[in-house]
């Protein structure tokens, strides 16, 4: 240590003797309102939930018992089950600052694989389902590899994959539907997720239960495991994450593989819901936009790293409530379409407003 470097005034020494006291400001919010604020602040997924409850309440008031029946309310769950599962998958990708346009097509493709393997190859249904799940995982893996290793933008990779998978679905199936009656007779296991639990007027299908479980498990994994933290870190700032010691490649691959698997599950859910295997299902074409819509309404940032999967689930439900509610209110299809557009904007505006007020 060179003595000549020392300034004459040992101001730094003083600092070392400073008290080790925490800054203490008085909290400025108190009471129930303050606690509500803090809660919203800590659990942002509550915001879309409030919007959801408000939407249900409004339609309930307008439509009365017809809408507020266990039948109608569980019908919404059934109608959103596919989009809900896809939205769970999409959330994962969007959290990594990606976007997946191929989710819907992958789901349809996997359902076709399951059907074809039973009816053309003669595989037992459980094996066929397994093969479908593997195929979905493989598609996800290919997406992940192109994104993570070849470093192509996720939008482009999954746009291309969307077209490829959709076309492959049609080519492979020859556009032929496998009828519900045939599946029922030969391979009822394919329709397993269509099975029902009847509780009074409420109907819960196994597909709905699968969706709920999936969302809860993923929410836990994202919040409370190292993997989840890495997903957020990679989406937030991949360079910083890499410097901080996250294996970005492995994290991305795990996300894309898992998303492929979930999409395949969505394919199985589709068979349960429609009874049949249909290559021309609309989900193949608009499942991506539907799931992204749910994710964004649910408050997940398209720039990655911010938001919660529960929010995306509520986002899917919000759209489902609007759709069924408007149809039940007797709006014609074109007006329904228009109003849903307006309501989506409105829902997110309310969401932003709640966040601002609670900030």
């Amino acid at each position, binding site marked *: 240590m060179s003595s000549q470097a020392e300034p004459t005034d040992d101001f730094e020494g003083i600092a070392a003797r400073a008290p080790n006291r925490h800054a203490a400001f008085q909290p400025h919010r108190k009471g129930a309102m303050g606690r509500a604020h803090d809660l919203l602040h800590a659990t942002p997924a509550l915001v879309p939930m409030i919007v959801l409850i408000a939407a249900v309440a409004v339609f309930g008031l307008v439509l009365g018992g*017809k809408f507020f029946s266990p039948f109608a309310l569980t019908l919404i769950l059934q109608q959103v089950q596919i989009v809900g599962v896809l939205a769970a998958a999409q959330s994962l990708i969007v959290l990594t600052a990606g976007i997946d346009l191929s989710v819907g097509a992958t789901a349809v493709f996997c359902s076709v694989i399951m059907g074809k393997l039973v009816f053309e190859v003669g595989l037992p249904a459980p094996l066929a389902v397994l093969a479908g799940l593997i195929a979905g995982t493989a598609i996800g893996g290919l997406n992940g590899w192109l994104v993570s290793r070849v470093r192509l933008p996720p939008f482009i990779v999954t746009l291309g994959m969307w077209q490829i998978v959709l076309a492959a679905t049609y080519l492979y199936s020859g556009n032929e539907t496998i*009828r519900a009656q045939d599946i029922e007779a030969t391979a009822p296991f394919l329709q397993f997720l269509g099975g029902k639990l009847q509780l009074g007027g409420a109907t819960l299908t196994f597909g709905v239960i699968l969706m709920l479980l999936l969302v809860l498990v993923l929410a836990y994994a994202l919040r409370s495991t190292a993997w989840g933290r890495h997903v957020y870190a990679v989406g937030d700032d991949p360079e910083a994450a890499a410097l901080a010691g996250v294996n970005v490649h492995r994290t991305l691959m795990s996300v894309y593989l898992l998303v492929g698997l979930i999409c395949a599950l969505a394919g199985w859910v589709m068979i349960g819901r429609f009874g*049949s295997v249909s290559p*021309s299902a609309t989900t193949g074409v608009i499942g991506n936009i539907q799931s992204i819509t749910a994710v964004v309404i649910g408050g997940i940032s398209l720039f990655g790293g911010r938001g919660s999967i529960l929010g995306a689930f509520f986002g899917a439900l919000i759209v489902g409530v609007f759709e*069924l509610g408007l149809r039940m209110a007797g709006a014609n299809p074109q007006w329904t379409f228009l109003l849903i557009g307006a309501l989506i904007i409105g829902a997110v505006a309310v969401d932003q407003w709640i966040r601002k007020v609670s900030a």
Partner: protein
Amino acid sequence: DPVGACLITKTDTNPFFVKMREGAAAKARELGIDLDSYAGKVDGDNETQVAAIETCIANGVKGILLTASNTSAIVPAVRQAREAGILVIALDTPLDPIEAADMTFATDNFKAGELIGQWARARLGTDADTARIALLDLDISQPTVGVLRDQGFLEGFGIDIADPKKWGDESDPRIVGHDVTQGNQEGGRRAMENLLATDPSLSLVYTINEPAAAGAYEALKAVGRDGAVTIVSVDGGCPGVENVKAGVIGATSQQYPLLMASKGIEAIAAFAADGTRPEATEGKSFFDTGVTLVTDAPVEGVESISAEEALGLCWG
């Protein structure tokens, strides 16, 4: 150089057009014609069909078989093709105006709808006056086929259709509502659920095609009303006819896409050989490839064939 021909369909996700393509391809192989096929990307896709016609011109083909997505908007492109000396045959759906094409080989879609409408009216008998009707259409952009079938059905059933160029403007109280299906099971099921939630007492369901009908049936079955509701549809594809046989669908109007396609290819071959143009059916402005009602519950006054017979004629 072999003779070139094009087949342009509305989409290629609908089995109807897939079969049409297969029929045309088979015939073309037989006659030694080089056939390229094109399709719109979604229902109602005019732009891609225009681009396809332009490609056919660039490729120097002799004839084009076209199922137009938008029967009037496609006309300038068709005119361009005809000016380039190409024979243009409208398949399945006539253009607007019909003489914009050299010839039309079509099913009368309005008639197809009318047949199931008449059948349903007769089938319900006195209940027809109190029927609760749901209409499951194709798409909110109201492509022409969807409108023709829907309006034909209502006309056949005896409901005032107001403007025949669009659905949804009728005021008959028996109509519970319209919803759209994209012509597949998924859309059929969702649309049926929506309308069931609106009015659970439905008794008659019109569907744009048989996949939508199958989806609607799943929704009805889920609430235990599959026996109480009559479903009618249009197309006559083999799975659809199977469903008529299984009692899922009450009646369907069968069309003959393979016939249209093979006739069309033959006409192009003839035109390429010596310039002859095809002739219209007697008394009509187009060559009618026919439509037949398929049902296992025939009614008085509406001609029909049984599902068993139809299975021998069905496509796909």
